[in-house]
């Protein structure tokens, strides 16, 4: 490798140059090493200072709530491949679904603008890494609330927005009527989810042998199932309902599938944020809670303006952040504007409306089931705002 000539030290400088070069190199080396040591020493002391600041509290310097409000946009981690919950529609190019409406609700509450959102599709494998890296603020991606995620993985869960369970469907002409019949079969399951682990636990509990056929995305699982590679397909029942209803007619349409009666596990799907930021967690929690409370109190997207103008009860007044008969509105001190629920309801409606729009009678057609209000025999129970 060629480097052009000795340093041009001018006329007759060849020997001087060489001697000088040797001196230069050693001077350089010594100087560099000294500088590095000095800096490292300086760095150590700075670290201690910073460490002291950091230890002062596990709270971050600024809550994500403040950061989002300053930024003016809410970034949500979502799914783009699950019909009804988060689905990229080829017609409009937009991601729509149940979870997306919750994202818009949070944006309406925190920023006052339901459309100031940035939807970031994330896969199951990377959703938590991305949350920790701060790529988005809140994860609304049909994610199950588990203790290990709460604990070691450092995720904090807000209010359950969909109570689901894991189920399985098989071909209608197969001999399997319950999961217990499926010894020695191959079962399709999405990789990297609690579904895979629950399947393992459930089959072990029943003492059955099986083969897990895993892929990352639904189209590939669908291919495997239609080609007969697997005998059953397990996933959250809401997802299975979506898949069944969209089953192609060439493969026999929805009638060619049988949903087995077993519920293999509990899957409480919950929006999630990073641990250690209680202001942000509270904000997300109370938005979801507020939506359920609105349905309990009969406040809809349609009548929110009338209700706000003339609240029929103290509970409605507290919910909508207006004073009752000229009194002062309730400020729960959540860091949100007092009437945040009004904006939320105007943008997306209450819980029931969101459900019907995407998952219920105007969407996948799932009955409310576990997700009905507690007064109707379901599990959705709102914490009072007072």
């Amino acid at each position, binding site marked *: 490798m060629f480097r052009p000539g000795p340093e041009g030290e001018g006329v007759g400088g060849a020997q001087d140059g060489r001697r000088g070069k040797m001196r230069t190199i050693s001077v*350089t080396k010594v100087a560099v090493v000294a500088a590095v040591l000095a800096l490292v020493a300086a760095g150590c002391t700075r670290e201690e200072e910073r460490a002291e600041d950091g230890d002062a509290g596990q709270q971050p310097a600024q809550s994500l709530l403040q950061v989002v409000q300053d930024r003016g946009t809410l970034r949500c981690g979502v799914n783009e491949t699950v019909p009804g919950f988060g689905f990229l529609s080829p017609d409009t190019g937009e991601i729509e679904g149940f979870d997306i409406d919750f994202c818009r609700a949070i944006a309406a509450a925190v920023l006052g603008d339901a459309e100031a959102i940035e939807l970031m599709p994330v896969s199951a494998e990377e959703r938590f890494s991305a949350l920790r890296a701060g790529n988005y603020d809140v994860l609304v991606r049909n994610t199950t609330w588990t203790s290990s995620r709460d604990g070691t993985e450092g995720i904090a869960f807000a209010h359950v927005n969909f109570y689901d369970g894991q189920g399985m469907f098989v071909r209608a002409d197969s001999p399997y009527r319950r999961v217990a019949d499926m010894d*020695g079969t191959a079962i399709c399951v999405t990789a990297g989810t609690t579904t895979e682990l629950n399947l393992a636990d459930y089959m072990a509990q029943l003492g059955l042998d099986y083969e897990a056929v895993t892929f990352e995305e639904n189209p590939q699982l669908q291919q495997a199932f239609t080609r007969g590679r697997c005998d059953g397909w397990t996933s959250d029942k809401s997802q299975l309902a979506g898949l069944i209803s969209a089953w192609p007619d060439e493969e026999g349409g929805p009638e060619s599938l049988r949903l087995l009666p077993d519920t293999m596990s509990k899957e409480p799907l919950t929006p999630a944020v990073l641990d*250690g930021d209680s202001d942000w967690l509270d904000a997300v929690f109370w938005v979801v809670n507020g939506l359920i409370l609105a349905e309990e109190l009969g406040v809809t997207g349609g009548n929110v303006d009338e209700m706000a103008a003339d609240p029929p009860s103290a509970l409605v007044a507290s919910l909508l952040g207006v004073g009752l008969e000229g009194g002062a509105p309730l400020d729960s001190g959540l860091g949100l504007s007092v009437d945040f629920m009004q904006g939320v309801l105007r943008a997306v409606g209450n819980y029931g409306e969101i459900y019907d729009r995407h998952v219920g009678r105007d969407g996948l057609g799932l009955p409310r089931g576990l997700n009905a209000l507690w007064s109707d025999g379901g599990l959705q129970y709102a914490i009072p705002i007072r």
Partner: protein
Amino acid sequence: MWTGPGSLGPRLAHGLRFTEMAGSSVAEVQRAAIWRNVRFLRVVGQLVFAVVVVWAFRELYLNLEYGVRRVGTDLSFDFLQTRSGIPIKEGIAYDPNQSYLRAYVVAVANTVRVAGIGVVLAMLLGLVIGVARLSPNWLVRKIAQVYVEVIRNTPVLIQIIFWYFGILFALPLIEGGLSLGGVAFLSQRGAAIPWPHIGEGAGAWGLWLLGGLVLAGAVWWWRTKVNERTGRPHHRVLWSLPVLVAVAAVGYAIVGDAVRLDVPEVAGRLYRGGFQLSGEFTGILVGLVIYTAAFIAEIVRGSILAVDRGQKEAAQALGLSPAQQLRFVVLPQAFRIAVPPLNSQFLNLTKNSSLAVAVAYPELSSVSSTMINQAGRPFQITMLVMATYLTMSLTISFVMNVVNRVVTRKGEGR
């Protein structure tokens, strides 16, 4: 910092000034201003550079530490000893109750497996296609050209996914799977081929084999000497191979249960026995081999064309047949030329094995991605992964450098 005659200027100027300022001390005049002195500038420049670099790294490190503490994790590697809970479907012995470190080792073994077999197969296929591209037969030449043009210009990830999903699902299920004479099987479950199974007598038989090799080597040397002395054809292979085979057979018979052939069979929905290649492994292997072979074919073609035309003509003039020309004159020289670009293709294949994440083959990248998601220490894991890939790259480069030195030593001046 390159130096140039720029330093000449001040010296001349000072020289001129010297004639003006009679009586000034000589030492003063011969020294240029310190900030024009190139040696000084070089030292200071490097110092400043080093200071900036170290400061930048320190800032990054502090940010990292702060951020990591904010999410509640740390920068240590202790988590590697904890239970992983990651299911890994294939590879060396492992179960999810073992540590993250164990999972990592399994993943690395899988990468080495796919890269090693891939390099060998890609080399073979690339050689065939490369020679085909130079064939006088128009059909063969065109087919090879179409192959190279299509494969080289399509992203490797698309090809891997295509081979995996497109081909895997086109295969029949295991019940109606293809079988080669009942000993090898191919289906959606994967492939299973017969594989030698090491028995108890393997060590002893190994010694017999070693003895056989030594004996065969001696025969080889003897025949070469005969050839040199008398000029008669040596038929080295014809003499030493039967010797090796005879010794091996005798040893096998004497030792007993040395090596058995483990023939796979279809058991329900699984294969039992033999060497099983999962669908994922086959998918990424086929994708990588086909892709890299296209590049290797171009390297082979280029290196054969780069051999001096005079060599081929001289060989022709000596009366060698085209096959002999290729084998004795052209290919050895072409190989010499091809070694450096082949090195980079092998490195590319190893690095492209990271795309197995798309087909769920549990090699290094996909397992480390799962580990990051679960254990939540992206910095440590990413650094570990990079160090591993760097080590693999350096190893391959080292081996290829040795090969390079061996082949160029034999042919001086090329």
